[in-house]
């Protein structure tokens, strides 16, 4: 079968009005069905004719999946709320500004106007071998093309690789982990709530998926508890171009400092591994210490323990070290700025 990466092939389209209808359709068509939110990840696969669902379930018409609601001091964000709505929402700007910053760092304005928070955290990896349709482990095949003597892998993983060295490209995911968000999942068996960091899985557990969603499951909402409202936040994304590009790496942290000492802290890094990494060891190590350069240095060194570079991504090790350092120790602005 000759290969062509253009023009979406025909599929059956459903636009269910409610979550229950969506679940029914997903349950009915199982592996043949594809749940679509903003569609920005979806259309790449379909237009390249690499993934061929018979049925596309468009979630855009389900009102219960949209919107941002205050919820005992925190917020609940419907899964198909667009990134722009998240970025602009006053409550989020006021209490959980790191999420606005992180979401605004993603992609481009038009993509943020359509891309959803649920889609952003659930999107597939951008490993260019995998996305080109090469039959790699993640595609169900028997090799990783990105970790070979000739592979070009500057954007790939330094941690948590297991055969596959792809990374998770989400900018909002580490922010949600830093905010200790809970992901609400509807499965055929009912509702299930998991911690943000437990939503994501590495290749060791399931090499063909980035998260715990099984066919027929649906991420319906993301709940941000009040606990980290108004914390001292740090988000930084390092990328090639300032628009569109996925992170070479990003870091997100939430920190409460009382009487000069770090009291509570959550910190996560993404694009370093196949799933966003919550740096629990770093959190433990810096708790009770002053948030200064020295602590930052220490934290940075601790964060990169066990990192294994590939041929072209050794830079990610100092990058991760420095980002973690900054998140905790802060950044020095140039005198002329």
């Amino acid at each position: 079968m000759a290969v062509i990466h253009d023009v979406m092939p025909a599929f059956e389209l459903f636009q269910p009005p409610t979550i229950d209808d969506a679940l029914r359709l997903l349950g009915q068509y199982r592996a043949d069905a594809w749940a679509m939110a903003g569609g920005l990840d979806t259309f790449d696969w379909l237009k390249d004719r690499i993934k061929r669902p018979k049925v596309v379930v468009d979630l855009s018409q389900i009102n219960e999946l949209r919107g941002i609601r205050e919820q005992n001091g925190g917020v609940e964000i419907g899964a198909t709320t667009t990134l722009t709505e998240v970025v602009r929402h006053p409550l989020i700007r006021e209490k959980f500004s790191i999420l606005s910053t992180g979401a605004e760092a993603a992609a481009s304005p038009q993509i943020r106007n359509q891309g959803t928070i649920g889609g952003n955290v659930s999107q597939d990896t951008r490993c260019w071998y995998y996305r080109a349709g090469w039959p790699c482990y993640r595609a169900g095949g028997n090799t990783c093309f990105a970790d070979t003597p000739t592979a070009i892998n500057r954007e790939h993983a330094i941690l948590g690789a297991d055969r596959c060295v792809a990374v998770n490209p989400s900018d909002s995911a580490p922010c949600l982990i830093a905010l200790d968000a809970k992901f609400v999942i509807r499965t055929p068996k009912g509702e299930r709530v998991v911690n943000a960091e437990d939503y994501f899985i590495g290749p060791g557990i399931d090499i063909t998926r980035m998260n715990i969603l099984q066919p027929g499951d649906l991420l319906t909402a993301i709940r941000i508890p009040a606990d980290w409202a108004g914390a001292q936040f740090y988000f930084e994304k390092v990328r090639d171009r300032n628009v569109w590009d996925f992170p070479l790496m990003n870091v997100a942290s939430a920190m409460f400092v009382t009487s000069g000492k770090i009291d509570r802290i959550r910190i996560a890094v993404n694009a370093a591994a196949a799933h966003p990494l919550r740096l629990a060891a770093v959190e433990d190590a810096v708790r009770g210490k002053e948030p200064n350069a020295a602590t930052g240095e220490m934290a940075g060194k601790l964060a990169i323990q066990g990192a294994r570079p590939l041929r072209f991504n050794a830079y990610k090790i100092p990058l991760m070290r420095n980002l973690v350092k900054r998140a905790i120790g802060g950044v020095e602005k140039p005198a002329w700025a």
Partner: protein
Amino acid sequence: MSDAKNATKNGPATKYKLIGKNYVTPDLYAKVTGRSKYAEDYRADGMLFCKLLLSPMPHARVRKIDASAALAMPGVKGILTADELPPPADSINDNGTVILANKRGDRGLTMEPLYQGDPILAVAAVDEVTAADAIEKIKLDLEPLPFVVDPLVSLRPNGPNARLDGNVWVRGQQPPPQPGRPPAVVPPEVTTLKWTDADFAEYNEGKLPMGKATDEWTVGDLDAGFKNAALVLDETFVTPNSSHQTLETRTAMAYWQNGKVFVHTGTQSTSQTVPAIARWLGISPDDVVFISEYTGGGFGSKITGAITLIIPALLAKKCNAPVMMRISREEENFIGRGRPSLHGRMKVGFSKEGRITALDMFVVCDNGPYDQVGDAASCGRIVSLLYQPEAMRFRYTTVLTNTPPRSPQSSPGGMQGIALMEPVIAKAARKLGVDQVTIRHLNAPEGKAKFGPLINGKQQYVTSAFIKEALERGSEMFKWDERKNQPKRSGTTARGVGVSSSCYVGGSIGFDALCIIKPDGKLYIQSGIGNLGTESLIDVHRVAAEFIGVPWEKCEITWGSSAKNLPWACPSGGSQTTHAMTRAAHAVAMDAIKKLQMIAAHDLGGKPDDYEVANERVFRKGGGAGMSLAQAAKRAIQLGGIYDGHELPKDINKFTAASATALAGQGLLAVAKDTYPRDGVTHSYVATFAEVEVDLETGQYKITDFLAYADVGTVIHPRALGGQILGRSTLGIGHAIGQKWVYDQHYGLPVAKRFHHTKPPTILDIPQKMDWAAVGIPDPETPIGARGIGEPPVGGGCAAILNALSDALGDEIFRRAPVTADVILASLEAGRPMQEPLTAHI
């Protein structure tokens, strides 16, 4: 300085009414309302759509094609394979020279694909979905053949060849000349060139191996030059491959009507695309109607359209219906052409003041599999012009690889040559303690500067060069002296400033112009130039209006279709247009004035010279009897002959003659070829300045300021000029900050196929305010003094950023372009350059 800048931007205000003034180009209204039609915007009754089947392998032979399942699908109308293409045909250029066809050239479709993405066949169907589904149903039997995507790998002792008959281009054998005809231009030949292991000894130290080169020239005494040098640097640098990535892909639509083929596609020349289409299809130019009102970018990749346009044309004939071929972005990355990477090794001797006493330059060009690109050759010429070395040897080899075909891209070879040399100059200046502007000023060309190899014992020279003025005024405007001494480091931020010289060819000669003064008193101007948005399509004709003295409001410009009787014009590539076509416009204005004077003398007595033309009238000098242009136009029709186009000058191009004949009798028809003398080769120059700020903890950097100060002779249209200077500068910046190709060498396949992989700069990757200015000294060798500007800024844009980076970070960071965050961070961490220096496409 700003006032000086305004003065030049607005041109010498006193002298002209139109030239040097801003105005609204007549094509802009259609553009802002979305009514401007590009190739894919046309529809025709019963239009079919075709899709391409691209080679999945880097090099293979098609053993068998089984399209039965595809053709059996309802809605599939036909298939086209390489066997059905007309054979490559010779062509004849304007001065009658025969250009023999290159049998190794790209033919649009092939049975021996030479790179992944090489089109093998096309299928036409009632809609795109059907066509794409049909492509998937086709069974290909491919025999894999040896392939190579890295030119240096191909030059290894046992390296593979990209083509079955070899891996490098060499000069073809000249056939015996035929009496009375200029010698034919022969295509280059392919041969096999391998270097020895000894040649590769220095490879691992990151030094470009210098084995046997296919081409070489030397000027001056190299050894003496190095002997007298106070400093000798031996540097290797590599520039990236980069796709043209015009925003409009090379989409084409075609149909046949009573024996004529109608083709819609983008082009850089409306007039010159007609013979190209005729040659590709093996038909007469008279049977070609070519429509191209608007083109979504060319940058050298659509000089005369693209050969792939024959696919819808032939399918349209076969299926007897119009065929639209929409080229997808991924297809465009394959067939859309790209700038070749140059591997360069520069051994440069400097006097203690910084003057280049000797330059020994060695270049390897990654050509791709098809027609030879001239980048390596022009690289040598531009470098020798820009730095005026006292002695220079230039050696180069153009290596074939199984990667997409290359073609000229804005400043072909020049951009690479400047990017190769500038970091060396910057390093030398640092080592010698000489100011960066001073060292460039010291080596800069001036007046009729010589350059390039000896041709019959003599070097070529330029018409003029005022880059020294550009450097002086530019450094003042940029406040160079202040900035170079500003603190470079603070906390985790480093700051640097960079300057670069830059130049390229700035114009050609010998083309035609055609216009009519009609009885309504208006001036109707025919433009054969392609519409790329540089606005030279319109701008150059302001010269005709200026000299005939017709207000711009009374000028009508016609362009965009060979059916509209257009004159023979230069292609808008190589920055030719402004120079070449202002000359032609001036010539046609003179022809119009001459004819007006003759008509006046004929009717009102006296000699033609007694009359002058101004304020839409021709009248006796110093006032008195005369007539309006409208009256003169009526008279011209009555008089006929030379006046209304029934008699034409002999020297104009036959394409122009045909158009003029078709337009004859409508008014006073002026038509002329540019036959003005020119002493030297026209080049334009730019002095470029940039400032960057680097984050030492992430390697990310931002360009905080940018200025391009251009020497382009007389300014014709300031705003268009500014757009060109900064636009082309930014194209160069793209090569410094991110644009590249990425290949997996095991499979010989590209992995970077999307914009977020190949990284064309976005609006947030450049300063929000960039600055430009023009010296504004007219070129002495052309009537208006105007030169072109498309190419010259590109090299400067790239090199100024590279130099600013090394100013901020030192010389131990990068060894090739682009310079990205990972390169900077890894090198800072290791304290030495961590880029793989010579591996291609990383």
